[in-house]
């Protein structure tokens, strides 16, 4: 019975496909294959909103590079790698000249493998794994600060503050928790610091007494503890560490930039973390936040909105420099961008493997409030290889 029904349904599917619109000659088609549903949606949705906002602004000014209106084709990958491959192929078939991929490495690599041979530049929304462009090739770009870049910025701050010794707490359960502290260690040691110990935990473990005891038993207390742990592990670790009387300051990265950690109040005092930008009064980021609220009806919920917005600005600038709609020309222009003034600071692709060097805002909790410490743009040469 299924067989008799199948051709009819397949035909309907084909008809729907044919309805998909094609681009005009001097338009630039941007394929957006991102997760609107599933596990990646919380990251991809705000990023897409920021991206759309920028494209609308750019089109109002005549298009990308001032002369090529951008046409978006948005498709849901449902946070599924196989579905991402299909969607990516459809967008390529629909003539995408620039591709946006989900906020995760696997699906981004899966699409990148298809766009790379065609020299179609592809951007991942907020994917931070530094190996991403290496796995694909020179047409794959990230825009969010990579794990190694963030670690380098935090290490620069620690060195500037005169710290000498660090204890690294990692978890092998995710790329982020496993590698970020190690990247920190590499930069820290290269700049004269030393790693005096390493501890490991399992994500989701409620009891950190073994790790706390190990830190307490060190012959000399370290100057700081570096970890990429986040909720719910981080608050548990912090409480147990402080309860054991260890007052060593803790440095982390962007995953500590959440209301939960801030809500720890006094307990979180002295914790250093990173943000993609800091909305200082009068800054571009503050202006963006206001504009975004006007556009979307709510304030940005994360830094993913501004990140999506910046990707559109990078494409806009690359098209302006390339002066053409040719994907290869756009790709080359992106790869050559240097000190591009963006919303959160300057962005540089020249001399990188595809993950940008850009300004990182460093913050510190004090009395339950996040205080701005510094903005650091690490030297491209200092950023550890992935």
């Amino acid at each position, binding site marked *: 019975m299924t067989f008799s029904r199948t051709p009819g349904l397949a035909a309907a599917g084909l008809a729907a*496909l044919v309805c998909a619109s094609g681009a005009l000659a001097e338009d630039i088609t941007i394929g957006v294959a991102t997760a609107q549903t599933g596990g990646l949606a919380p990251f991809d949705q705000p990023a897409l909103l920021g991206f759309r906002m920028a494209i609308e602004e750019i089109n109002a000014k005549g298009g990308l590079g001032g002369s090529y209106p951008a046409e978006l084709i948005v498709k849901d990958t449902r946070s599924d790698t196989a579905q991402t491959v299909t969607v990516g192929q459809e967008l390529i078939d629909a003539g995408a000249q620039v591709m946006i991929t989900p906020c995760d490495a696997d699906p981004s690599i899966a699409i990148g493998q298809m766009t790379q041979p065609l020299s179609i530049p592809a951007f991942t929304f907020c994917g931070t794994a530094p190996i991403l462009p290496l796995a694909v090739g020179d047409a794959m770009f990230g825009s969010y600060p990579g794990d190694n870049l963030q670690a380098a910025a935090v290490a620069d701050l620690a060195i500037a503050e005169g710290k000498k010794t660090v204890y690294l707490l990692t978890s092998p359960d995710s790329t982020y928790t496993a590698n970020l502290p190690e990247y920190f260690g590499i930069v820290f040691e290269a700049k004269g610091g030393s790693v005096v110990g390493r501890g490991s935990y399992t994500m989701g473990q409620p009891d950190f007494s073994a790790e706390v005891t190990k830190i307490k038993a060190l012959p000399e207390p370290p100057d700081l503890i570096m970890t990429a742990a986040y909720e719910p592990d981080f608050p548990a670790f912090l409480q147990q560490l402080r309860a054991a009387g260890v007052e060593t300051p803790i440095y982390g990265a962007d995953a500590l930039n959440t209301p939960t950690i801030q809500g720890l109040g006094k307990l979180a005092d002295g914790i250093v973390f990173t943000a993609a930008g800091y909305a200082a009064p009068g800054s571009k980021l503050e202006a963006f936040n206001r504009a975004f609220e006007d556009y979307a009806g709510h304030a940005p919920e994360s830094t993913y909105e501004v990140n999506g917005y910046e990707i559109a600005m990078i494409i806009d600038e690359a098209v302006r420099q390339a002066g053409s709609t040719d994907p290869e020309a756009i790709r080359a222009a992106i790869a050559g961008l240097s000190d591009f003034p963006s919303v959160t600071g300057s962005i540089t692709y020249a001399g990188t493997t595809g993950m940008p060097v850009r300004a990182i805002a460093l913050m510190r909790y004090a009395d339950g409030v996040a205080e701005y410490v510094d903005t650091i743009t690490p030297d491209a040469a200092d950023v550890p290889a992935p």
Partner: protein
Amino acid sequence: MKTLTQAEGRETSLTSRLPLPATFRAALADGAAMALAVVLLAALFWATGDAALQRVASYAAIMLTAVCGLQIFSGNSGIVSFGHSGFVGLGAYACGILTMPAALQGATLRNLPGILAGHELTLGGALLVIVLFAVLVGALSGGPLLRLSGSGASIATLAILIITYTLLVATRDITRGSQPFYGVPRNVGLWTSAAAAAFALVAARLFRDSPVGLSARAAADDDRGAAAIGVSRRGAWYLAWILSVVLAFVAGALMAQFLGAFSPKDFYFHLSFTMLAMLILGGMTSSLGALAGVVATTILIEIVRRFESGAVLFGVELPSLFGLTDAVLALSMILVIWRRPLGLMDGRELDLLRRFGRGATPPAELPAIARQAPGGEIAAEGVGKRYAGVVAVDGVSLSFAMDMITGIIGPNGAGKTTFLNIISGDVEPSSGTVRIGRSLRGHSAVRFARAGIARTFQNLRIFGRMTVFENVLVAARQVEPDLARAERAAWRELALMGLDEVADRPAATIAYGLRRRLEIARALALGPRFLLLDEPAAGMNAVETADLVQRLAEVRTRRGIGIVLIEHDMRLVMNLCERIVVIDHGQVIADGPPAEVRRNPDVVAAYLGSRSLKAQQDNNQEDSPTEDTSQ
């Protein structure tokens, strides 16, 4: 014996014309038809020239391969497996490591153990290695898993999934841990995946009706019933498990070369649920269900997702509505489970041959019944059974000869069924020994059945989801390794019990009296020396009982086997049995010919208050026994 030889001579001429057993032919025709459908669909997609559609079709074919693997185990054992997505993952990583270009491998997997490094195999070569690996993994994991059954085994498969995931994440030198594994050559397209799916469908369809498949399904339908015909649950399920693991690995290998980049989370719960949802949607118990589930799910997703990002339908612009796909998928699944609990295909196979009137039919000449050589007896010596202080059977010593019908009677709760369970191997006695004329290792229903002790149950234990024919065939197969001969023996037993008209029907759907007879036909298909019947006439009306009496008498005269039956219907017992044993409070209180037992004062005392025997005695004094039998 002479008739048998004649029949065999005829069989040889039959086999030269139709070289394959009917069951196998039917399965092969279905499998070939489904494989052809898959290949034709692939050709259709190839003809469109649309790369995206071809990717959809390739992925669907890979999923179909994996779902067929799942069907082979879950469909035939009834155990829902969550673990297969883990095996897909192991296959994917194995394929990735074996086929990766050596230079890239050196760069991305610096600490790969030397034995795994630098193979750069072709997909075909890698598949050979992967199949061997899969057999090993299946054999190792199946052992402990199949000590469990039902939901316990399901939970164990969940544990297997978590273990494989943890292994993939933890063996960082080999798998890159939780980071994406990339650099796998992407050589799998439409034709490779369609070929794998076609192969998997044929394998699943053939397995279902293979001797092992039949045994696995019998054990899934009724474990005790299966043991009573000598089917070892673990043996059958073990093979199903290994074969299903192999297909999951193959699907994983193709998936690796289709995706090119993946990480352990791609083979975790989400994939596991997707595979199960596809299979349950189509119908878990048939290969057609696997095909229908994958096709229906894929079509549904492909149509709905095109409307998600906002489309123009009949001139009306629809708003973009992300999440529609999952919502429609969930709704349709609820709808299917509500309207068709057995799945879209209702658990059926195509059954093409039967549909076109070329299905299995009784052979023109049935093989003759072999009369059992006399000799051998069941001898119970001082057999006792206690259940936590309650003595069910208390030192019973009885022996039963062949070529005789013995009735066991006694009040309710006297220990009759426990005694029957002991001499059928089902229950191990707490004391005493049972000898059945063959040396046996261990006291189990499976071993007793294979040694010629067949039985039926007080509460029917037929295989409800299998056809009447399959019920008998699976028993015949236990004593006759040749499938074609087993089929003919099964047809003979069905004909003798008057069941050949309903042979195609699922056993659960036939009338109660027929089901009782089916259980006897199934027991007789084992070619037993002894047939133990536990209340064979329970729930039957007078006409059905009379018919049964006649058939049982015939069984005894034509086969010369020993029949031991428990029955409350005194008329049946007195008319049919040559010897009656009376058990009360777990002990034998009388043993002898009916006339003698009827007059035994102890028996009368045991039945005091129960008017049945008294009434029976009065009744029998008036009527002559022969008249009763002929009624």
